[in-house]
């Protein structure tokens, strides 16, 4: 886990315990009122990625609105893990909801997403071509700056890691963000044709830390799990008895052609540790208590808290509504 390794012991997640049945009932009622009375929409549309967040969000929408009022949109693209489509379908089947398959690869290709990204990659790795694979990872941050690196894999399987210029980094990310924005456009197409609202799927950690694309996966009419720590999302998944394969799937960005975990790309520690540290920070617990619960040293907790503060600062504009003058 980057600069924090090795953790002394597993985190104690009891701080994050909640009454799952009561929370589901509360959220179902709130979603129902919010969607039908406030938004004046008759159902919910959401992108199904086969991950825990979108599956639990779908389950909550079903509890609130009924399975016949929820539509899941499956949106694979050229770099997607095939498991995402398979598990997205499994989630829909378990919940009894309709799905729509939208292969966004051709749209992204036509818009130049892959070509733009690859051109920025070639600024760093001139040989990079369509048959190569890539991902962006955080450095270990051991020296104090957690900068991002480009990892590429050649067609013969040789993998290498490269520091990028700021221009190349921004260009690669900007191209990758086209994926989330294309998905959101299609979610709203289906929402508009059905008179439904779009459900967003960020959990508390993602929302707090700005781990979303503005006007991409950050756009939605309601975000029913944005107040829940990821640990709590897993707890709801357990209560809903969602497919075991979805509940045991490690969180992934599924944005890059090489497999990539969320902590490789963005977070400084596994979600359980981040959840405990964020809870401690938000509830005024001391670093000593947070360290004991998170399975870290006090110094490591302080490192995580600094990282949380830095990300809040760096991503503040993602939460800002358009400025009106």
């Amino acid at each position: 886990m980057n600069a924090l390794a090795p953790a002394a012991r597993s985190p104690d997640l009891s701080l994050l315990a909640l009454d799952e049945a009561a929370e589901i009932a509360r959220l179902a009622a709130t979603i129902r009122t919010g969607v039908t009375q406030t938004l004046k929409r008759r159902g919910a549309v959401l992108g199904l990625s086969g991950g825990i967040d979108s599956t639990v969000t779908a389950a909550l929408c079903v509890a609130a609105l009924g399975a016949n009022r929820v539509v899941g949109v499956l949106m694979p693209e050229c770099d997607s893990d095939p498991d995402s489509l398979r598990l997205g379908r499994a989630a829909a089947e378990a919940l009894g909801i309709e799905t729509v398959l939208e292969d966004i690869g051709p749209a992204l290709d036509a818009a130049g997403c892959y070509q733009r990204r690859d051109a920025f990659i070639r600024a760093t790795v001139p040989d990079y071509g369509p048959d190569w694979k890539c991902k962006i990872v955080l450095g270990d941050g051991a020296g104090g700056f957690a900068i991002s690196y480009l990892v590429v894999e050649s067609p013969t399987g040789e993998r290498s890691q490269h520091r990028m210029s700021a221009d190349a980094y921004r260009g690669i990310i900007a191209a990758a963000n086209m994926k989330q924005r294309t998905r959101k456009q299609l979610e709203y197409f289906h929402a508009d044709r059905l008179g439904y609202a779009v459900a967003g799927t960020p959990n508390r950690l993602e929302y707090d830390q700005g781990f979303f694309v503005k006007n991409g996966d950050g756009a939605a009419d309601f975000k029913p799990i944005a107040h829940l720590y990821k640990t709590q999302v897993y707890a709801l998944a357990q209560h809903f008895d969602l497919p075991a394969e979805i509940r045991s799937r490690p969180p992934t960005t599924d944005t890059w052609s090489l497999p990539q975990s969320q902590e490789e790309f963005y977070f400084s520690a596994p979600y359980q540790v981040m959840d405990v540290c964020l809870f401690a920070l938000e509830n005024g617990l001391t670093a000593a208590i947070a360290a004991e619960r998170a399975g870290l040293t006090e110094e490591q907790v302080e490192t995580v808290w600094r990282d949380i503060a830095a990300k809040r600062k760096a991503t503040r504009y993602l939460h800002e509504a358009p400025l009106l003058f």
Partner: protein
Amino acid sequence: MSAVESDLRAFIAENFMYGGDAAALPTDRSLIDEGLIDSTGVLELVSFLEEKFGLVIGDEEIVPANLDSIAAIVAFVDGKHARVAA
């Protein structure tokens, strides 16, 4: 003020202070703590130093001790130049 510091302050003013006045920025103030640079800003700063001053900066040199204040950056650049000249 050395030429390196002058160029550096101009770069910081234009890119991280959005046209603000970098002249008043204390030389030992942390650019991170001040909210002036984030991890992407570090990449921008490294690119600037490499291009402007003809340096090759290794990954192991991208640390706060070298890059988190004007004083640290000036000392780092001067040190790199001195080692090249030696």
